[in-house]
């Protein structure tokens, strides 16, 4: 009899212990950037969000995912407490996942640009010329309207035919809407359309290589790709290994939370 009572007691104690843990997890409360301290934070590997959390958030347990979407799945599962990600991809994720929400608190602002191999000024000048052109002739605006519409209804513009004897390889990570993502079986997005403009101006055929974000810089330096357009922010660290074009978009890091 005593044994049974003892066993029962042990079971109840164990159960309450688990319940205690559960409550503690549910009490994760983040309302401002400082609250990230000591939390489990998901980021996309190789992004400025990862650098920010690693360097600026005290005691953060950083978990690097291959994409923001995978981080979102783990956030929904309760495996992490928050995600730090670029604003527009974060918005796209939250739009698809009603149980997630964005905490807008300007963690870090940054500017996206196209990266080329260090010293490849010839290509860089051509890219800059195209960026200049689309900004002045209205193409940029219509691209922005198509991919970042106020009503949230993205209308993918027609592919611009690119052709020619030379092939230009553009590296990207198609898990970063609306800049690059997969629609059906195709990689589409703002950066893809912009790269088509660049290739068309050069009279070259565009080839899109969809790889991991944190492989892009090494792919540039080993000539696997010619340029990288992947919603990539200009940072001091990256400037050591690649050259950046003129910036084409200003972004910031935001926090995604579970509602």
């Amino acid at each position: 009899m005593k044994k049974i009572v003892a066993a029962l007691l042990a079971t109840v104690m164990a159960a309450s212990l688990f319940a205690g843990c559960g409550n503690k997890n549910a009490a994760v409360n983040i309302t401002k950037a400082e609250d990230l301290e000591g939390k489990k934070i998901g980021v996309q590997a190789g992004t400025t969000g990862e650098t920010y959390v690693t360097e600026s958030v005290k005691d953060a347990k950083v978990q690097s995912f291959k994409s923001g979407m995978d981080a979102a799945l783990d956030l929904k599962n309760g495996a992490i407490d928050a995600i730090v990600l670029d604003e527009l991809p974060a918005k796209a994720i939250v739009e698809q996942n009603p149980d997630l929400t964005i905490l807008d608190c300007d963690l870090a602002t940054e500017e996206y640009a196209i990266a080329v191999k260090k010293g490849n000024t010839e290509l860089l000048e051509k890219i800059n010329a195209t960026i200049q052109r689309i900004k002045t002739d209205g193409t940029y605006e219509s691209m922005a309207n198509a991919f970042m519409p106020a009503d949230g209804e993205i209308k993918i513009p027609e592919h611009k035919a690119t052709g020619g004897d030379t092939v230009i390889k553009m590296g990207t990570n198609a898990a970063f809407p609306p800049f690059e993502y997969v629609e059906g079986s195709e990689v589409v997005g703002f950066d893809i359309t912009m790269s088509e403009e660049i290739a068309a101006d050069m009279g070259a055929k565009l080839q899109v290589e969809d790889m991991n974000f944190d492989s892009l810089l090494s792919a540039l330096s080993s000539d696997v790709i010619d340029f990288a357009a992947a919603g990539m922010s200009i940072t001091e660290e990256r400037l050591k290994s690649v050259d950046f074009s003129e910036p084409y978009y200003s972004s910031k890091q935001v926090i995604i939370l579970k509602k």
Partner: protein
Amino acid sequence: MNEIYRNLIADDRWKLILEGLGNTIVIALGAIVIGTIIGALLALMRVSNNRLLKGIALTYITIIRGIPVVTQLMIFSFVVFPPLGLSKLTIAIIGFGVNSGAYVAEIFRAGIQGVGIGQMEAGRSLGFSKAQTMRYIIVPQAFKAVLPTYTNEFVVLIKETSVAGYIAIRDLTKVSDMIRNATYNAWVPLLAAAIIYLILTLGLSQLFAALERRMARSDRG
């Protein structure tokens, strides 16, 4: 049911899956062919009496077996092959083939050495040269003996191709990643990929089991 349709069929996703499946099969088949050729050569080099050949084969096997396949694949893709301008798919086939070759070599060597030493002596005493004995007596017996382990290497290879996504190839695993990123459903694309892999490996095992049975018929038992 709706989720299955949305994840596997809608928005041309079935095309994506077919593309991934196609790439996985092409890589696996190509790698098997290259791996078998490299493996056979290496195995013969290892059992030869030439010390240099033996050394080369042993070094190759040691290095290749000691490095994870995904690391090798990235070395091939980002360091070795970029100057040659080969397609990603070709790089993957060569990469997996080179890797598989090391394992196949060891399988073949075990098979050759597993044939009793008396067989070689018998062949030699019948007046066959060493090469002839190898060709007519040792290898046919060895082949039969290694078939099950050789099949296993194919199965392993098919599964290993799942890291091809690291070098921007749309294989089955990468495709399921892409679908997951688009639909935010982890279950359906991952399970579908798992089932397809299972069908592939099961089918292959069955095929080789049939081959094994056919070859067993020639045994006097």
